[in-house]
């Protein structure tokens, strides 16, 4: 009679071969999970780059330019290029074929200004057109500058001190480092990586438990003289390996991903090198192990793969919703975050992206939570296995 370790390796090897031959599922997971992160990164970088280039262009579109030589003079002094807006700008803004807000000047602008009446200048944009909306603030500040200049000049002519106009001076001081600021944009990356790990484990976990029941291969399997825990541990090992493989691929896919970043600013802000990738893995691998065990425990109660998919939805939902606590920053970081699986990993990976160091305690708490979950899952599956085989 042999120890339980030999069957463990036999089962592990067989389940790995079996899972890796399921090419279609693997390909789907790879494309949907592993490529998703870099693709999103690419999309964000494209957006940031286009915003940057527009800010650099320093262009402003005005409708009725001829009515406002004073305004034109001011804008040109601010080194802006002033352009006449196209006649059908309203329709084009609505269709999103025109992406800049337009300043509309009334015909009697100059005369009203001289009389001291208050002419109304419109900034036309479409709030459904996100790109035009993004530039509106810039134009508003620009026109505000014009108003202030006019006011200051007319008051100064009447001998009023300028300090009366601005009794208080406002200065911005941003405490965030470049990396911290970038997490506002890259903050969703840990989420994508975690989803990749989850979906990596999902199919294999369901196949080795509910799938085995559905095929009718669980009953003959238990008629081998191997201890149940070693069978289950072997199956768990294989599922965890697959999930970890996806984790590794997913974490390292961001390395080439950042070479294609089109925005220099974003590239400078998004510090993700081999060190960050390794830290991500330190955080993710225990989660992969725990998710494998939990998914198997949920699925062993189901007779068919389809039934198991329905039950696994709850796990998927919990793992996808918990990190949102971070994303929405509900009440900032609390100590319990580190004790909650998925949320803890998201918190730690976000810290890595911010360029902060991870302490031992921060790594050990989620690690031990994952270890307990793994042990519980494997124990439960081993307990249910015999009953599951004959029902």
């Amino acid at each position: 009679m042999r120890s339980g370790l030999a069957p463990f390796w036999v089962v592990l090897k067989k389940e790995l071969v079996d899972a890796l031959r399921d090419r279609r599922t693997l390909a789907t997971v790879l494309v949907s999970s592993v490529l998703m992160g870099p693709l999103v990164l690419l999309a964000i970088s494209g957006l940031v780059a286009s915003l940057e280039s527009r800010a650099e262009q320093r262009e402003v579109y005005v409708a009725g330019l001829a009515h406002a030589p004073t305004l034109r003079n001011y804008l040109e002094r601010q080194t802006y290029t002033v352009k006449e807006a196209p006649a059908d700008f309203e329709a084009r803004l609505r269709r999103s074929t025109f992406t800049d807000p337009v300043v509309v000047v009334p015909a009697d602008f100059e005369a009203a200004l001289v009389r001291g009446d208050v002419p109304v200048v419109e900034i036309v944009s479409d709030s459904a057109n996100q790109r035009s909306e993004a530039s509106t603030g810039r134009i508003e500040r620009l026109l505000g500058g014009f108003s202030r200049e006019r006011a200051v000049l007319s008051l100064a002519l009447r001998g009023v001190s300028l300090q009366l106009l601005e009794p208080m001076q406002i200065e911005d001081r941003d405490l965030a480092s470049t990396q911290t600021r970038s997490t506002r944009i890259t903050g969703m990356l840990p989420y994508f990586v975690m989803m990749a790990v989850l979906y990596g484990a999902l199919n294999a976990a369901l196949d080795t438990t509910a799938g085995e029941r559905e095929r009718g291969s669980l009953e003959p399997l238990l008629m081998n003289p191997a201890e149940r825990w070693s069978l289950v541990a072997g199956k768990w090992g294989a599922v965890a390996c697959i999930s970890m493989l996806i984790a590794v691929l997913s974490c390292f896919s961001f390395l080439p991903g950042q070479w294609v970043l089109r925005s220099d600013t974003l590239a400078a802000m998004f510090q993700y090198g081999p060190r960050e990738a390794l830290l991500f893995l330190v955080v993710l691998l225990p989660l992969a192990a725990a998710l494998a065990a939990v998914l198997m425990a949920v699925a062993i109660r189901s007779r068919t793969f389809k039934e198991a998919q329905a039950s696994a939805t709850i796990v998927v939902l919990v793992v996808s919703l918990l990190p949102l606590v971070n994303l929405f920053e509900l009440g900032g970081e609390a100590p319990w975050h580190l004790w909650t699986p998925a949320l803890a990993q998201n918190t730690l990976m976000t810290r890595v992206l911010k360029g902060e160091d991870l302490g031992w305690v921060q790594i050990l708490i989620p690690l031990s939570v994952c270890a307990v979950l793994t042990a519980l899952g494997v124990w439960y599956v081993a307990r249910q296995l015999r009953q599951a085989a004959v029902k």
Partner: protein
Amino acid sequence: MIEVRSVAKSFAAPAPRGRRWLPARAHDLDAGGHRARSDPDARRVHAVRDVSLVARGGQITGLLGPNGAGKTTTLRMLAALITPDAGTLSVDGIDVATRPREVLARMGVLSDARGLYPRLTARENIVYYGALQGMERDAADARAQDLARMFEMTALLDRRSAGFSQGERMKTALVRALVHDPANIVLDEPTNGLDVLATRALRESLRWLRTPAGGSKCIVFSTHIMQEVERLCDSVVVVAHGRTVASGSVAELLQQTGESDFEEAFVKLAFVDERSGERSLA
């Protein structure tokens, strides 16, 4: 040698759905007007009440009984998948309850469920079980080759089992159960879904395994088809309603019932309650 002594097993019946909240029908009520279901024993299904059998080496023992007689449950208890409520089971003198893994190492079981792994080849399916039985990979592979020749499935060995026919799947499952050359072979309705030729081939193989050249195996063969038993088995155990109702050779059973036709004898033995019901109706 396989010995089963007076085993019994009952299961909790699943609660009937849908009608739980409806008023009780007349036949649900006992004499006192209470729901019969309140009696805990009434909610239990007695799959096996009292089954005994002895199967010796070098013999094929048929476990014959109608559908639902308790054959599969008995064989599952033998394979330590279900713990019996009462009675003992042993294989080569080893108690199933206390040393199940030693028993499983001496037994090859083709169970009711005989699923294969569709992404693995027939050979990989077979060698996997060999490895789980503690065989070296080379030895398991060589054994798979030998058995494949015997069951005429050499051409199948390196094909993935996904597209196998019913007969091909059965052969693969059978070879998988025999890969560790067990002294005891237990087959649960092995001819289910097999065509005439495949059934014949299986019979030939079992006859050979019974001979000293084939290893004088102790073979238990469960079925509800009496022709199988008549053609193949050295001794027969007839099971009905969870009880062993008769045992002996085919000739002995014919003599016992005073019939010349084995089908008549089987019906007389296994369906005794139903027949008395028929008579009283007549």
